[in-house]
C-alpha cells in the first residue's frame, strides 16, 4: 500500500562544500531512528572514498526517513542528496526535479558561496519551496543576522524564519524536521492508477546487484515483476527487485506516486540508463515523456597515458570498467608520437576529470600522464563543413579553415573585497568580459563572460591562490563564439611534441609561448648538448629558449671503497632516463607535460 501524497515530503539539501550538508543529513537519519546509533558512521551518504575525502557528492544518494510529526501523523521524508558541483549541473537539475523542496544550508560563520547560488537557482527553477537553514550557529564566529540579510539580498528569498541549527551538536534538528513537514509542500498530484511515469534520477553499478536505478514515481504504480520501458533508449526490462533506501536497501512491493525508490532489472551497464529518462510500463505505458531530458555531453577533453607503456592494457581495462558506471565519461584510443598508446577522454568538467584520474591511479594502481585539458572547438572549414575539434593535435591545416568558435561560460565569483582587484586581473588576463559587479556585505559578486578554455586548466587553482582560498566560483556554459584562435606547437630540439600542442588566442600566443618555453627550460634536465625549445604557430617561431648543455656532472671522490656504490648511482642515473619520455635525443620528465601549461602570473 503506497503512502498517501499528503504524508510524503521529498526534498534535497543545497549547500556549499563544508557548510555541513552531509552532517545535517546524518543527524536527520540519526534523530529519526532510521539508523541505529551503533551503525552510524560519518557521512553516511557519501559512499565513495573520493567523495568523503573531497567532501563532495558525485552520485545522487537517497534516504527514506519515517517521522512522526508534532501533528501526530507519520510522514515519509525522502531526501535526495544531489551532487553539489558545477560539473554535474545537469544531474543536479534532474535530482531537483524529483523533489518539491530544498533545505538551503548556509554556514552562519561564512555566508553564501557561489556554488550555493548556482544550486539554489537550480532549485528555484525547479519550483522548489526553500527553507533556509543556518548551520554552525553554536560557533562564536556565527553571524546569523548578517547571513540572513545576505540570503535575502543575494538570493532574494525570505530568510527571517531561517532555522538555526548546529548539525554537529544536534541543536535545532527537531525544528528542521518540523519545517520539512510544515513548510515544504507534498507532491502535487499523482494517480496511482494512471499510466506509469517515473523519472530516472540516477543509476550506478553495484557489484552484487548489477545496475541500480533510482526513480521518482510521478504517476502510476511500479511493482516488482513489472515489464518496463526506458523511453529514450527504448530498452525493455523486467523489474527484479524494488525497494527504498533507509539508507540500506529495503525491499517494497510497490512504489506509488510521489515516492522515491530503486529497482534492479538485469541491466548490464550504467551506460544503458540515461539520467532524466522517463520510465513507463511496456504495455499501457504513457506516450508523453517528462520534459527536459538532455543527454550528458562531455565538455573537457584530455589524453590519459600510462607512465609505463606496458600498463596500456590495464589502463584500457580500468577505463572500460569506469565507463560502465559513468555514462557521462567518454573515451577513445589515442596514439601520440610522444606518449605512445593512451586514451582521449571526455569529461563533464575538471572535477570530473580529476575524480576519474584519481580513481584510475588509486583503484587500479596505474600511474598516468595527463595531457593538457582542452575544450571542444568548432572548426568551420572553407568548404562549409564544421569539425568538432577535441584535440589540438588534430587541428586541420589553417589554410583550409575559415574560422573557429570556442565555448564561453558565465562565471560567478564571490570574493571578500580585499581580493577583488586580484580576481578582476585574473579574469581580464583570461580574456574575460565583465558582466556584473555587485556587493553583498563585505563581499563582491563578480560575473564574467569567459572562454571555457581559459578556465579548464588552472583557473580555479589560481583563483584560490590569489584569494587565499576565500573566493568561491561557479560557472555555466553559455554559447559558442568566434575568436582568433590558433594552434601553438612546442618544438624541443627541433622536434614537435604533439602532447604539448595547445589552442590559444592569437593575442596571447606570444606570452603563452614564452611562458611555456621558459617553464620547459626549467623542467627538462640539462643534456650533454644544448637544446632549443621553441613555440611556433604554423611554421613561424614565436618564442625561443635555449637549454644550455650540461656542464658539470662528475663525482669528485672515487676511490676503491667508493667503486660499488658510485657505480650503482650511475646505473640509477641510466635507469632514470628510461623512465622519461624520449623525443629524438631529448628526455622529457612526465611532470613536464602538465607543469609546462600552468600559468603563474
Amino acid at each position, binding site marked *: 500500500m503506497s503512502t498517501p501524497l499528503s504524508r510524503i515530503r521529498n526534498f534535497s539539501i543545497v549547500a556549499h562544500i563544508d557548510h555541513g550538508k552531509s552532517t545535517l543529513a546524518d543527524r536527520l537519519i540519526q534523530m529519526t531512528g532510521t539508523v541505529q546509533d551503533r551503525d552510524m558512521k560519518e557521512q553516511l551518504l557519501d559512499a565513495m572514498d573520493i567523495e568523503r575525502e573531497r567532501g563532495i557528492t558525485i552520485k545522487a544518494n537517497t534516504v527514506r526517513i519515517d517521522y512522526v510529526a508534532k501533528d501526530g501523523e507519520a510522514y515519509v521524508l525522502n531526501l535526495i542528496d544531489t551532487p553539489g558541483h558545477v560539473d554535474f549541473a545537469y544531474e543536479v537539475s534532474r535530482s531537483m526535479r524529483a523533489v518539491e523542496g530544498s533545505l538551503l544550508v548556509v554556514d552562519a560563520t561564512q555566508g553564501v558561496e557561489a556554488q550555493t547560488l548556482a544550486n539554489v537557482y537550480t532549485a528555484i527553477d525547479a519550483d522548489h519551496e526553500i527553507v533556509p537553514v543556518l548551520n554552525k550557529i553554536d560557533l562564536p564566529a556565527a553571524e546569523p543576522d548578517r547571513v540572513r540579510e545576505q540570503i535575502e539580498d543575494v538570493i532574494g528569498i525570505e530568510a527571517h524564519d531561517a532555522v538555526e541549527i548546529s548539525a554537529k551538536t544536534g541543536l535545532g534538528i527537531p525544528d528542521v524536521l518540523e519545517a520539512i513537514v510544515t513548510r515544504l509542500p507534498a507532491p502535487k498530484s499523482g494517480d496511482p492508477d494512471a499510466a506509469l511515469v517515473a523519472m530516472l534520477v540516477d543509476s550506478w553499478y553495484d557489484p552484487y546487484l548489477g545496475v541500480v536505478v533510482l526513480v521518482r514515481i510521478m504517476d502510476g504504480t511500479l511493482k516488482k515483476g513489472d515489464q518496463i520501458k526506458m523511453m529514450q533508449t527504448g530498452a525493455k526490462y523486467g523489474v527484479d527487485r524494488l525497494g527504498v533506501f533507509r539508507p540500506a536497501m529495503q525491499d517494497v512491493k510497490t512504489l506509488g506516486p510521489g515516492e522515491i525508490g530503486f529497482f534492479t532489472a538485469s541491466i548490464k551497464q550504467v551506460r544503458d540508463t540515461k539520467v532524466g529518462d522517463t520510465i513507463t510500463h511496456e504495455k499501457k505505458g504513457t506516450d508523453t515523456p517528462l520534459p527536459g531530458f538532455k543527454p550528458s555531453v562531455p565538455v573537457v577533453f584530455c589524453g590519459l597515458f600510462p607512465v609505463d607503456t606496458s600498463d596500456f592494457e590495464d589502463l584500457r581495462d580500468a577505463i572500460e570498467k569506469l565507463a560502465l558506471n559513468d555514462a557521462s565519461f567518454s573515451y577513445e584510443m589515442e596514439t601520440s608520437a610522444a606518449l605512445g598508446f593512451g586514451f582521449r577522454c571526455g569529461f563533464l568538467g575538471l572535477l570530473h576529470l580529476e575524480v576519474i584520474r584519481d580513481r584510475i591511479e588509486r583503484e587500479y594502481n596505474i600511474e598516468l600522464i595527463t595531457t593538457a585539458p582542452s575544450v571542444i572547438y568548432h572548426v568551420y572549414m572553407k568548404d562549409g563543413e564544421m569539425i568538432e575539434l577535441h584535440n589540438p593535435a588534430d587541428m586541420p591545416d589553417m589554410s583550409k579553415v575559415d574560422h573557429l568558435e570556442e565555448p564561453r561560460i558565465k562565471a560567478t565569483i564571490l570574493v571578500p573585497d580585499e581580493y577583488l582587484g586580484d580576481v578582476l586581473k585574473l579574469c581580464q588576463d583570461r580574456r574575460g568580459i565583465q558582466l556584473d559587479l555587485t556587493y553583498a556585505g563585505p563581499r563582491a559578486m563578480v560575473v564574467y563572460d569567459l572562454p571555457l578554455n581559459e578556465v579548464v586548466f588552472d583557473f580555479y587553482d589560481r583563483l584560490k591562490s590569489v584569494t587565499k582560498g576565500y573566493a568561491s566560483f561557479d560557472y555555466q556554459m553559455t554559447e559558442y563564439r568566434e575568436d582568433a584562435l590558433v594552434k601553438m606547437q612546442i618544438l624541443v630540439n627541433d622536434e614537435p611534441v604533439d602532447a604539448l600542442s595547445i589552442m590559444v588566442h592569437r593575442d596571447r600566443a606570444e606570452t603563452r609561448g614564452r611562458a611555456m618555453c621558459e617553464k620547459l627550460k626549467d623542467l627538462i634536465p640539462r643534456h650533454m*648538448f644544448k637544446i632549443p625549445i621553441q613555440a611556433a604557430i604554423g611554421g613561424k617561431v614565436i618564442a625561443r629558449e635555449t637549454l644550455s648543455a650540461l656542464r658539470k656532472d662528475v663525482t669528485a671522490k*672515487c676511490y676503491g671503497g667508493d667503486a660499488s656504490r658510485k657505480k650503482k648511482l650511475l646505473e640509477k642515473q641510466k635507469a632514470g632516463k628510461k623512465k622519461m619520455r624520449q623525443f629524438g635525443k631529448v628526455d622529457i620528465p612526465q611532470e613536464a607535460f602538465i607543469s609546462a601549461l600552468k600559468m603563474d602570473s
Partner: protein
Amino acid sequence: MTVEDWQYGGFGLYVHWPFCEAKCPYCDFNSHVTRQVDHGAWAEALVAELDRVADLSPGRVLRSIFFGGGTPSLMAVETVSAIIEQACKRWRPANDIEITLEANPRSVEADKFRGFRDAGVNRVSLGIQSLHDDDLKRLGRLHSASEARAAFDVARSVFDRVSFDLIYARQGQTLEAWRTELRDALSMAADHLSLYQLTIEPGTAFWERAERGGLRGLPDEDLAADMYELTQELTDIAGMPAYEVSNHAVPGAESRHNLIYWMGGDYAGIGPGAHGRLTLSGQCHVTEGWLSPARWLTEAQSGSGDRVFQPINIQDRVGELIMMGLRINDGLDMDRFDRMIPGLLNSVAVHDLVDEGFLMVDNNRLKATARGRLVLNSVVARLLPDD
C-alpha cells in the same frame, strides 16, 4: 705464465681505521667517534686479517699500503708499525713501495709524524680542506689554518712526499675567492694536491640540512664548472696538472696506491667497511668488511672481518673499470677490454661520444677529453653495459 687482468693495475693494501675525534658534516666515510679504543686488540685483529688475505694471495708484489679512515693519524704508532712489518713479510714489497697515511693537520698528530716515518710511512696526505678559518669551522674541522700550515711544515721536514686535500665550491665561495685560495695552496704545495668539489652526500649532516633547505649559497652548476675549469688552469700553470678528476701532481709524484684503483688492479682491504678486489684463480672477487667497528672486531677475532666476499660478474666488473679508468689521463687500455668483452669499446655509444667530443682514442687507449671529464657521470652512464 699469462698475465692476469689485475696486473694492469698492480696490487696494494688498504687499511681502514674507523675512528675520528669528531664527525665532519660532509663526510660519508665509515667513521665513528669513540672514547676508548683498545689499541692492542685492534692491532692484533688488523694483523690477523692481513694474514688471512695474504694466505689467499701469496707471492704478490706489494706496490703500496694506504692507511685511510676515519683518522688513521690517531692510530698508535705500534699498530702502524706492526701492519707494515707484517705486510712486507707476507708479500714482496716493491723497491719503491709507497706507504701513505692520512693525517689531520694538527700539532698533536704532527708530534707523531717521526714515529710513523720510523714505522715505514713515506707519504702523508693531510686533510687541510681550507686555508680559511671560518670555512674550516663550517666544515666542522677541529684545526685552524695556521695550525694546518704548521703541521704541513712538520710533515715536509719528516716525509719525502706530502700531499694535502682542499674542499672547494663551498657555501658562498666566489670564483675570485677560490682563485686566491688555490694560488695560496699551490705556493705551499709540495708535489701533490687533491682538490675536491664539496659534494652533499646522502647520510651526512650536510645532506639533512640541505634537505631541510638550510644549506644556502652552494654554487650552481655553472659556477661549479667555472671553478673546476679555473682549477685546471691554475694547476697546469703551477706544473701540477690533473692526472685524475680531482688529483693533481708534479709528473711522477702521482699517488701510486690510488692509481691501483683507477687502473683496475687488485687491492686487499682490511678494517671495518674496507673494500677489496681480489682475483682468485682468474676470477675477481669483491670483499667488504663489516661496517660497525665493534662487529668487525668480533668477526675478525673469530676468523674473518669480511661481511662480503663474492665473485663479481663480468658486466659489473667492466662497468667499474670504465667508471674508474676514464677518471685518469691514461684512460682505458682498449685491448684489455677486448679480451674481457670483445667489441665492447667499439659500440655506437663510444663512437657517438667520440664524435661529440667527450671521448678520444689515443694510442689504442680510450680517454675522456677535458669536456668529457667534467660530465663524466653522464658519459659513463651511456657506456655502462646493459644488463
